């Protein structure tokens, strides 16, 4: 039960006083936009006739690709990804034109009058079709270690299968929104709900054909993103900016939920085909796995996601011989992108499928197989397949703690006994580990800077590129400032989310690191000043390099009770012409130091489910999670973030189900048909514990927690097996919807 005093931010949010992008008071004459969507998944665009739409009263402009002055391309990685279709449409719902009008109703009426002549072509839908047609983006990725060509049979047992893994809609509660105001000198000011303002700036400047310095992007706060407002944010921002440039008026673009579903990429669906060899103890000796990712028709973040999948196919398990290959498939869907786990959960799902099957084939308890395969210091089992030491991975600790606090062994006995008495409903119990690399910024976010300014009263302000989403990174930044300078949260103002103040990049950890660097510089500059002030008060300074900055003052480490107020130090420094404002810098290269990841977050979870054999319905009775989040800044918040990410993972594996028509139209494009978990789907009992805090970095808890929801999937597998109707290694679809579970138990047509 949380019981901390609410802060102002939380109060404002709970009572609706906090303003999101679309809550801003509209500027006078704000224009509105309606988009014209492609009704085909793939077609040539022979002509676009906008005359009738342009004649509708109140319409200011009807924009097509021809109105884009710069480069009609949003792709962050490679290739073409036009904002407005040019020459052809490549997915159902692709924007072809944008109608700009005084009122939304007029814009929508006019959008219906834009006449587009299409020449439909057969679309490529789904990974399997793409493989058959060899329709790919970019080259194959490959990762190898050891001797993957060894005869798998020589290890003992061999398993293999193909596994289709569904994608996921981000479903941030706030739909995409942006507005743009044209400036007087050709510049454009954008307010957008976006995770990465620098990326939006670069994209918009490219579209408009103006220097990046002419584009300002700001964001008061984001109503959820989960990866959906990276490239996703560029669509409303790009259209709004273009409309503002063409009409000369401020313009707002606001997606409704269905637009959001149609237009934006999701987490990629994947297809994995693997062969794994294991010995009689259950240890995996070899893994040969090919992963195909549904990239959609253009390249968004799929290559990064694919790399991340290949880096996580080991999950928490040491595998001596591996060959992992991956391809991004080109299909006629929106360009797919990453979500919370960045692909790690797709990889972990495959790893758990393998381990579960080994357990079933050897007829040993699967958690023993899991544990036996863990990374560990002995026999060189501490190095990942990409050569990174797993070093201080606290997996064993998390695992032990989880088994203990979930009373796993006692409950295993109890569940098995109960299942013996219940014929039509079975309980399932499973415990899974997770290991997720942290601190690996994406390619385009390699560096960040931040400015920390000390004010004469001893308070401070920080300016950095961090955007307010959920407040997690702000707590890291505040903690760093308190550590280094002894300035508490109440004395600190963090100004963020404006490209005018900082060349923003979205990776939070880089911002925090830059703030840390700035704080260290300031400490260095104030050291001598503080020394002199302490001396002046007759305090002997033990060690000039070890002054204590705490509680708004600076003190000798031996006399912490007699500090000089920081305000005095700052004023004295100013009087001595010392700059009390410092700009810090950080880069990915520095954080990673040549490693693939800075370090690893890990954890373990136990889930218990009830499967109804009559219907295939699953209830999650209980979940226990233990996670290592590194340094804990706000344990209560970390616990909450873990629950949230776990539930997203649970949704991905149970009720969230993207369904397309045979023509490539998304049929589940709304809150009533795409079903994210509600409060009732959360585990009835849900306990989360953090391993004790330690120094160094906080590790983002979300990705590992998302992966740990696979405990629910594995518990469903356990329950399905308990019905005694399935063979070892049976295929459990992902997601395991009630229908999927039902037909895992009953033959179709049965």
């Amino acid at each position, binding site marked *: 039960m949380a019981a901390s005093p609410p802060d102002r931010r939380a109060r404002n949010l709970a*009572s*609706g006083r906090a303003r999101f992008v679309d809550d801003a008071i509209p500027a006078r004459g704000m224009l509105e936009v309606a988009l014209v969507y492609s009704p085909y998944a793939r077609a040539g665009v022979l002509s676009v006739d906008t005359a009738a739409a342009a004649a509708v009263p109140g319409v200011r402009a009807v924009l097509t690709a021809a109105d884009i002055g710069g480069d009609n391309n949003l792709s962050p990685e490679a290739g073409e990804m036009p904002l407005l279709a040019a020459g052809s449409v490549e997915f159902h719902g692709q924007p072809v034109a944008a109608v700009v009008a005084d009122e939304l109703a007029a814009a929508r009426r006019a959008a219906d009058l834009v006449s587009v002549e299409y020449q439909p072509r057969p679309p490529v839908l789904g990974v399997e079709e793409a493989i058959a047609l060899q329709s790919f983006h970019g080259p194959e990725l490959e990762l190898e270690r050891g001797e993957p060509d060894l005869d798998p049979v020589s290890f003992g047992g061999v398993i293999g299968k193909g596994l289709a893994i569904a994608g996921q809609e981000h479903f941030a509660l*706030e739909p995409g929104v942006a507005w743009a105001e044209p400036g007087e000198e050709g510049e454009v000011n954008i307010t957008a709900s976006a995770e990465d303002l620098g990326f939006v700036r670069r994209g918009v400047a490219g579209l408009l054909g103006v220097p990046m310095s002419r584009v300002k992007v700001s964001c008061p706060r984001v109503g959820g993103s989960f990866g959906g407002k990276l490239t996703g944010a560029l669509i409303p921002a790009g259209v709004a900016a273009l409309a503002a440039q063409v009409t000369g008026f401020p313009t707002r673009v606001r997606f409704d*939920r269905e637009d959001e579903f149609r237009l934006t990429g999701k987490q990629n669906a994947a297809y994995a085909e693997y062969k794994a060899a294991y010995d009689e103890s259950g240890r995996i000796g070899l893994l040969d796995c090919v992963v195909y990712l549904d990239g959609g028709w253009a390249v968004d973040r799929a290559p990064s996601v694919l790399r991340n999948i290949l880096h996580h196919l080991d999950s928490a398990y040491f595998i001596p011989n591996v060959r992992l290959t991956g391809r991004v498939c080109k299909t006629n869907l929106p360009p797919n992108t990453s979500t919370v786990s960045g692909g790690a959960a797709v990889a972990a799902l495959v790893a758990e499928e393998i381990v579960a099957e080994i357990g079933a084939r050897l007829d040993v308890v699967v958690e023993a197989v899991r544990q036996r395969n863990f990374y560990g210091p002995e026999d060189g089992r501490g190095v990942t397949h990409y050569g990174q030491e797993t070093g201080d991975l606290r997996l064993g600790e998390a695992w032990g703690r989880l088994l203990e606090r979930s009373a796993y062994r006692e409950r295993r006995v109890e569940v098995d006994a109960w299942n013996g008495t219940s014929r*039509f409903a079975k309980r399932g119990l499973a415990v899974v580990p997770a290991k997720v690399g942290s601190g690996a910024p994406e390619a385009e976010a390699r560096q960040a800077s931040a400015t920390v300014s000390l004010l004469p009263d001893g308070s401070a302000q920080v300016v950095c590129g961090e955007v307010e989403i959920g407040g997690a990174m702000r707590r890291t930044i505040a903690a760093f400032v308190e550590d280094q300078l002894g300035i508490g949260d109440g004395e600190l103002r963090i100004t963020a989310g404006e490209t005018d103040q900082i060349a923003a990049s979205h990776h939070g950890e880089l911002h925090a690191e830059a703030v840390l660097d700035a704080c260290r510089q300031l400490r260095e500059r104030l050291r001598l000043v503080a020394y002199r002030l302490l001396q002046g008060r007759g305090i002997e300074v033990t060690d000039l390099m070890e002054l204590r900055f705490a509680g708004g003052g600076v003190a000798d480490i031996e006399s912490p009770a007699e500090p000089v107020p920081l305000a005095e130090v700052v004023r004295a420094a100013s009087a001595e012409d010392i700059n009390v404002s410092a700009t810090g810098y950080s880069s990915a290269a520095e954080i990673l130091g040549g490693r693939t990841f800075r370090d690893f977050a890990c954890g373990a979870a136990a889930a218990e489910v009830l499967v*109804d054999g009559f219907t295939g319905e699953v209830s999650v009775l209980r979940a226990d999670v233990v996670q290592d989040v590194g340094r804990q800044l706000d344990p*209560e918040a970390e616990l909450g973030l873990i629950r949230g990410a776990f539930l997203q993972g649970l949704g991905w594996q149970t009720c969230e189900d993207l369904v397309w028509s045979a023509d490539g139209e998304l049929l589940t494009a709304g809150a009533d048909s795409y079903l*994210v978990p509600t409060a009732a789907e959360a585990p009835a009992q849900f306990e989360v514990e953090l391993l004790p805090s330690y120094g160094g970095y906080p590790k983002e808890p979300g990705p590992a927690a998302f992966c740990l929801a696979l405990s629910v999937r594995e518990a469903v597998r356990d329950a399905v097996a308990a019905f005694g109707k399935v063979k070892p290694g049976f295929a459990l679809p992902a997601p395991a919807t009630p*229908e999927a579970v039902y037909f895992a138990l009953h033959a179709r047509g049965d």
Partner: protein
Amino acid sequence: MQGDFEFLINGTPHRAGGVSSATSLLGYLRDNLLVAAKDACGAGGCGACSVLLVDVDGRGEPAMRAVNACMLTLPMVAGRSIWTAEALGTGGQLHPVQEALASCSRFGCGYCLPGVSVALAEAYEGRRELSLGDVVGQSVGNLCRCTGYQPFRDALVSALRDRAGEGGEQRGLAGHLPPAAEGVSPLAYRDRDGVSFYRPETVVEALRLCQAHPEARLLAGGTSRCWGDDPGGAGAEAATMISLEAIVELAEIRRYGDAWRVGAGVTLARFADRLGDELPMVGEMARRFGSPQIRNRATLGGNLSSAPHHSDLVPVLLALDAGVCVEGLDGVRSLRLDELFTGFRQTALAEGEIITAITIPDLPQVGEGADVAHRMCGFFKVSKRGSNDRAIANAAFVVELDGAGVVVRARLCCGGVAAYGARAYEAEEKLVGEPWGRGAVQRVAVELKGLFPASSDQRATAGYRNALVAGLWQKFFTQNRDPGQPAYADVGLRDLLARPAVAADP
């Protein structure tokens, strides 16, 4: 006809003049800079736009009801009083549930929180004892992607505990309620586009309006007629709308001889409040029907006359032998409920006829000396998401046995599968006269599989739907194999959720 109307937002009178009848309350609020209610799905599915509507509870007492502002048009709130998240606090303080939410969720994006605070405030203001299941159920209409929902549960429990403590009665919104229930006022409004919105006071007036405007769209709560997916398209586009909300008779729940007579305008929430204990199937069905926000607006008559094939209400009413009172200018007629449906979203209502009431006869006496020794009832629903989702298949079963364990009466009713919810007469006939046991149940299960022609959609395949009809029947049997014994519970989950919320979490 009047060209404007008034309503109250946060106690302040607003006058809407000429405004389009299609304007949603949500749009109006946001245009008037009351932006706590968010526009996040536009279909009543996410709860981010929740506001409180001053309405009545099951006993007819004034009550605050959480509703989705995206599903109300402005004329629907004419004369009514709305409270938004911005104004739930009093005396410079936040509302107790907002204060509790702020303590319990200092993380997450916060976009959903104003709507959540409204949903939780409804429970707080309802001043009833709540079980843990009620606490969880109170926010199933509010989607959140950040928190995992635990903070909502914690916040409501904490606020309820606070309410139970010293001075708790004074906190909250009680002061904003009128001393006695105020009816919904009549209205005849014409907007700037010439669209008329009528809210007559009597059934006869409503029928006359229907006669005068055959093209008019009828609406009650507005959860499916006004927006949504009924085949006629959005009600907002009709030239005339007739709301039945001001007709007092339609909002009444009364005993009538040996039956309940439930007005067609009674909401699912009031129906369950009033009869959920007496008729457990009704309570169970209502818990699974949409979300609190939807149940607070959706009416029995609206649900029946829009005839969604997945209606959870229909199988339960069929199993209870419900009848439907239908009125037209030519007179009144009564139908058995299963005579009402004629096809997918089609009813036997003639042009100009409306449903005015649903009658639910008392079930036969059970016990010694009576023909019926045991009665078994059950409502079941399977949906892709367990809560706040449409049924893939649902079922209501009533089976009565004599003292020898022979079936004397059976009602086997299914929805979600075929074009409309229906009774399985052939299966019922097969069952009557048979001893209650596996053999008869299996024969009926086979029969049931073929009785409802199913179709496939994005929710489920036809094969699954057909299988579920039999599966639910077998589940019902398994739970009631030994008549007189308590039905088996789902591994304590139900027990866990039935615990009182405040005591459950000391």
